[in-house]
C-alpha cells in the first residue's frame, strides 16, 4: 500500500450499495473520494499478482515432480502472460490513470483486471486438471477481492460469468473438444465429480460475494457517514475561524476609530495645558469647541457600536412586536426630521406608491426606526449643497414592503459602493462634505434589514445622488420567535 503520492482526501472507501441511493452529483463527489482508495487497492492487487505469476512459474518448474509433465510449458506461458499484463496494468495505474482520475475509469480498469485474472485462472484450471484442479478455489479468492474493490452488484454479475465459464470449460473437456489434463493426484475427473465441483464453486462464489458485500457495504456506509461528518466539522471550523477573523478585524478597526478622536482630544488638552493657546481667547474657545465636538463624535461612535452589538447579539432578547406599521414609523420620522431638513434647506418628500399600509408580521420597532432614521438623516446630510430634495418612497406588494430613500446629493464613488455597508467605511467626499460621521450608519441599516429577513442595496453616482432601497418581507417570522 501507500503507492500513490499527492494529497489524500480525508475519507477512504469504495462506493457500493451504500451510495446507490444517492443523487448523481453526490455519487460523483463520493466517487472522487473513493477513487483514491480504489487506486491504492488496485496497485496492491498488482503486487499480489506478482506472487501469482511466481507461483505459476514455480508450478511449471515443479509440475513434472507432481505427475503433470505435459502442463509445464503451458503454465510457464500463463505465468509470462500474467507478468506481462501486470506490467501493463501497473504502468496504466501509475502513468495514465492516477488517483486524481475519475472513479468510473478506475472501476473499469478494476473490472478489466478481474476479468483478465479470471481468464488466466481458467487457463490454469484447464492445465491443472479442469474441475479437479487444485487452483479452482482461487476463483473464490478473486471474487472476494473483487467485491471489496468494486461492488457486490458487479461481482454477482461476474459470478454468473464465472459459473458459465466453468461450466463451459468442464463441458468442453468432457465432450473431448478440449483435452483433459490429469490432476495432480493423477486420474481424470468424472462427470459426477465435475457436477459436484460446479455446485461447490457456484455456492462458494455467490456465498463469498454475498458475505463480503454484506460486511464491506457496512464499512462503506460508515466511511460515507464519517466523510459527511468530517466535512460538516471542517465547514463548521472554517466558519468559526472566519467569524473569529471578522470579530478580530472589527475590534481592530473599532479601536482605531475610537483612538483617532481620543488622540485629537488628548493633544488639544495638552496644548491648552501647556499654554500654547489661552483657553479664554477666541482660539482657545475654538479649540475647546472642536475638542467637545470630538467627544461628541466619540460618543456617537460608541452609541452606534452599542446599537450594532445589540442588534447582532441581542436578537433573541429584542422586543419583537406583532403587526408593526412601516407607514407609521415613516410618518413619525418625517415629523421628527422635518426641522433638521428645513435647517439644511432640504425638501423632504414622502411618496407612498400604493394604497394601504405596509405591516410587518414581526418587527423590532426601535431597530427599524434607527435604520430608517439613519437612511433619511444621511440623505439630508449629504444632499445637494445649498438645498436639495430627499424623497422617501414606500411601495408594497403582497409579500414585501420596499422603502426607498433617494437624494440628489454628493453621491458615493463607484469603487466604494460595495463597501459602504461595512463598518467605518466613509467615502472621502462624504468626509469633506461632513466631517462628522461614525461610518456605522449603513452597517446598522444592513443589520436591521437582515434581522427582519430583508436586504438593502444602493445605487449612486457622484454629484447626482444616492438611492438606497430596503426590501422587507411582510410575513417573515424571525428564528428567535420560532425558537420561543
Amino acid at each position, binding site marked *: 500500500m501507500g503507492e500513490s503520492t499527492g494529497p489524500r482526501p480525508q475519507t477512504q472507501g469504495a462506493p457500493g450499495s451504500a451510495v446507490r441511493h444517492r443523487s448523481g452529483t453526490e455519487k460523483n463527489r463520493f466517487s472522487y473520494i473513493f477513487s483514491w482508495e480504489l487506486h491504492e487497492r488496485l496497485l496492491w492487487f498488482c503486487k499480489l499478482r506478482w506472487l501469482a505469476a511466481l507461483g505459476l512459474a514455480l508450478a511449471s518448474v515443479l509440475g513434472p515432480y507432481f505427475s503433470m509433465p505435459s502442463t509445464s510449458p503451458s503454465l510457464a506461458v500463463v505465468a509470462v502472460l500474467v507478468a506481462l499484463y501486470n506490467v501493463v496494468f501497473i504502468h496504466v495505474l501509475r502513468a495514465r490513470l492516477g488517483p486524481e482520475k475519475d472513479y468510473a475509469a478506475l472501476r473499469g480498469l478494476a473490472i478489466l483486471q478481474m476479468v483478465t485474472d479470471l481468464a488466466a485462472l481458467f487457463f490454469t484450471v484447464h492445465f491443472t486438471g479442469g474441475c479437479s484442479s487444485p487452483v479452482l478455489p482461487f476463483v473464490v479468492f478473486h471474487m472476494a477481492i473483487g467485491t471489496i474493490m468494486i461492488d457486490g452488484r458487479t461481482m454477482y454479475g461476474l459470478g454468473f460469468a464465472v459459473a458459465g465459464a466453468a461450466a463451459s470449460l468442464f463441458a468442453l473437456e468432457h465432450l473431448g473438444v478440449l483435452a483433459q489434463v490429469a490432476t495432480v493426484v493423477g486420474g481424470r475427473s468424472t462427470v459426477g465429480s465435475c457436477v459436484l465441483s460446479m455446485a461447490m464453486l457456484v455456492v462458494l462464489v455467490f456465498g463469498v460475494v454475498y458475505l463480503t458485500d454484506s460486511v464491506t457495504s457496512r464499512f462503506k456506509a460508515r466511511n460515507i457517514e464519517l466523510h459527511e461528518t468530517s466535512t460538516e466539522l471542517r465547514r463548521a471550523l472554517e466558519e468559526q475561524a472566519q467569524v473569529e477573523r471578522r470579530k478580530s478585524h472589527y475590534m481592530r478597526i473599532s479601536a*482605531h476609530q475610537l*483612538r*483617532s478622536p*481620543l*488622540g*485629537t*482630544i*488628548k*493633544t*488639544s488638552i*495638552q*496644548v491648552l495645558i*501647556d499654554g*500654547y*493657546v489661552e483657553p479664554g481667547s477666541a*482660539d482657545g474657545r*475654538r*479649540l475647546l469647541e*472642536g*475638542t467637545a*465636538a*470630538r467627544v461628541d463624535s466619540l460618543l456617537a461612535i460608541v452609541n452606534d457600536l452599542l446599537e450594532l452589538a445589540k442588534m447582532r447579539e441581542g436578537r433573541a432578547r429584542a422586543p419583537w412586536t406583532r403587526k408593526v406599521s412601516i407607514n407609521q414609523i415613516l410618518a413619525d420620522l418625517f415629523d421628527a426630521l422635518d426641522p433638521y431638513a428645513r435647517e439644511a434647506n432640504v425638501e423632504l418628500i414622502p411618496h407612498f406608491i400604493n394604497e394601504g399600509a405596509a405591516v410587518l408580521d414581526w418587527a423590532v420597532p426601535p431597530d427599524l426606526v434607527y435604520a430608517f432614521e439613519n437612511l433619511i438623516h444621511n440623505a439630508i446630510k449629504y444632499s445637494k449643497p445649498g438645498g436639495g430634495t430627499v424623497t422617501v418612497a414606500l411601495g408594497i406588494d403582497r409579500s414585501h414592503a420596499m422603502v426607498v430613500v433617494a437624494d440628489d446629493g454628493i453621491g458615493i464613488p463607484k469603487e466604494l459602493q460595495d463597501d459602504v455597508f461595512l463598518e467605518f467605511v466613509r467615502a*472621502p467626499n462624504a*468626509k*469633506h462634505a461632513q*466631517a462628522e460621521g461614525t461610518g456605522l450608519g449603513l452597517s446598522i441599516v444592513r443589520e436591521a434589514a437582515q434581522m427582519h429577513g430583508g436586504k438593502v442595496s444602493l445605487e449612486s453616482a457622484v454629484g447626482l445622488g444616492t438611492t438606497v432601497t430596503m426590501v422587507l418581507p411582510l410575513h417573515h417570522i424571525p428564528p428567535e420567535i420560532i425558537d420561543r
Partner: protein
Amino acid sequence: MPRPTVLVADDDPVFVQSVAAVLGTRYHVRTVANGTEALAVVDDDPPDLIVLDVMMDHMSEGFDVARSLRNNDATALIPIIILTGVDRVYNLRLEVDESWVPADHYLEKPISPEDLMRKVGELVGPGEAKP
C-alpha cells in the same frame, strides 16, 4: 532670517488647530486637509518641513505622499515628520525598518507639544518667537 515654514497635512481640523497653535509660536505654519493638497502646496511653494498624518482620505495617504516627495528630485530634501499611531502595525513595521517609508522622524498620536517642537527644531532649527 525669516521663520521656517512648516506644512501640516491632516484631515482632522481640531488636531490641525492644535498643531498649528504649537508650531505657530516659532514657525510659519500652513495647513492642508489631504495629501493631494499637500503635494500641490509643495509644488507651488516648497515649505521647510512637512508634518504628515498617515490616514487622511485613504488608509496610507501620508506614506504615499512621503514616498512621492522623496522620489522627486525637487522635493527629496524637504524634511518630513510622519504622525502615526492610527495603526500600530505601521509602527511595528517602522520600528523594524525605518526605510520602509522615507521620513526623518515619526511621532505617535496623541502627540506631546514638547516632542513636536523638539523634533521640528532638530530638522529646521529653533525658529523664531512671534514678535
